[in-house]
């Protein structure tokens, strides 16, 4: 699953979709996920990185990650053609 390449993410976690003008504020974990996605990390690599950084159960990371990816998809922030 890839995030759209033209999505702009600020250090403060502010997301701007330049295609439709949508903007979002994201929390620290979400910002980490997006940053890693933009570095073309796989979902397994992202989950491992999160687990290493945050002291939480693997199952919690899995659930939060899946929910967040769902949210990105609902807001048209995921690439459907690999771009």
């Amino acid at each position, binding site marked *: 699953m890839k995030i759209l390449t033209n999505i702009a993410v600020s250090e403060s976690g502010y997301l701007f979709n330049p*295609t*439709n*003008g949508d903007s979002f504020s994201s929390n620290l974990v979400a910002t980490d996920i997006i940053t890693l996605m933009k570095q073309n990390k796989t979902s397994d690599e992202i989950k491992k990185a999160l687990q290493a950084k945050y002291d939480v159960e693997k199952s919690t990371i899995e659930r939060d990650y899946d929910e967040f990816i769902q949210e990105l998809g609902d807001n048209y922030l995921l690439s459907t053609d690999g771009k």
Partner: protein
Amino acid sequence: MGSKKKITVAVTGLNAVDSPGPGVAVARGVRELEGYDVRIIGLSYEALEPGIYMDGIADKTYQIPYPSAGSESLMMRLEYINEQEKIDVLIPNFDAELYNFIKLSPKLKEMGINTYMPTTEQFEARDKVNLYAFCQKHGFYVPRDKTIYNVSELPAVAAHFNYPMVVKGKYYEAVVCQTLDQAQKAFHKLEAKWGLPIIVQEYISGTEINVAALGDGHGETVSAVPMRKLFITDKGKAWAGVTLEDSRLVKLAKDFIKATNWRGGFELELMVTTDGRPYFMEINPRFPAWIYLTVGAGQNQPAALVKLAMGEKVKPYETYEVGKTFIRYSWDMIIDIEQFQHFSAFGEN
């Protein structure tokens, strides 16, 4: 400074109010015309149009007769103004006045006043009344609509479109109606304000996107900048907006220009559905009130129009900054009553 050419540009639409005319934004853009020493002449209909009194907008403003007074009285007034000011370029900024200005453009040219407006045919083709047929002809998505002249026609139209549906005035304003009662009230209100006919349009759900663009009159696009409204007033006007990166929207403006050989500025009002279909809601035959955002994003459309009007070649813009945002604000100017009285009494300041 001494090497700059002097140019005098007249603009209408100085009513920078809650439903603003584009004149103030157009004047700001023209002021940034490179290589020229610009003098702006405001043309206003009312003595309380804020642009008359704002610093740095109009160097001088003259009152002109309302479009309903006809083109002859407008011409007489423009002759007087031109004797005083020697206008090089005139940019009309209201839909309702354009017809008169287009009609007068050959005479204006004889007087040395250049314009860059659509032809009568172009102007009429994109009229609300003709929008559906126009878009159908050129393969653009467009909501179904029906032009009506009597309130008694509403129930049949509603049965065809279902609710909500949009009731629109001849020139301005649109009301989304959920019931027949609301539609009837909207009909009477818009008829009283703008006259007949009234246009009833199928409601399309989606995101409002606008594109400001400039055509060279030969099918080429000089500039096109898409914008999403971030804050919309109760009158449906953008109070904040951001430039978008969407090549499909730019292509849409280019397709429109190619199809019509559009001459001058215009605005596409689009509703983009969740599955990405851009519906043409309206095509405004002049720059929008948010046109200064195009200047901020790197494509000075008002300045480019002045150059085209002066017969200069203008290289089409190719890029603009995405994410440039405008936020409109209201500001209480303090003026002396004498300024207002002087303008009211003499029709110029």
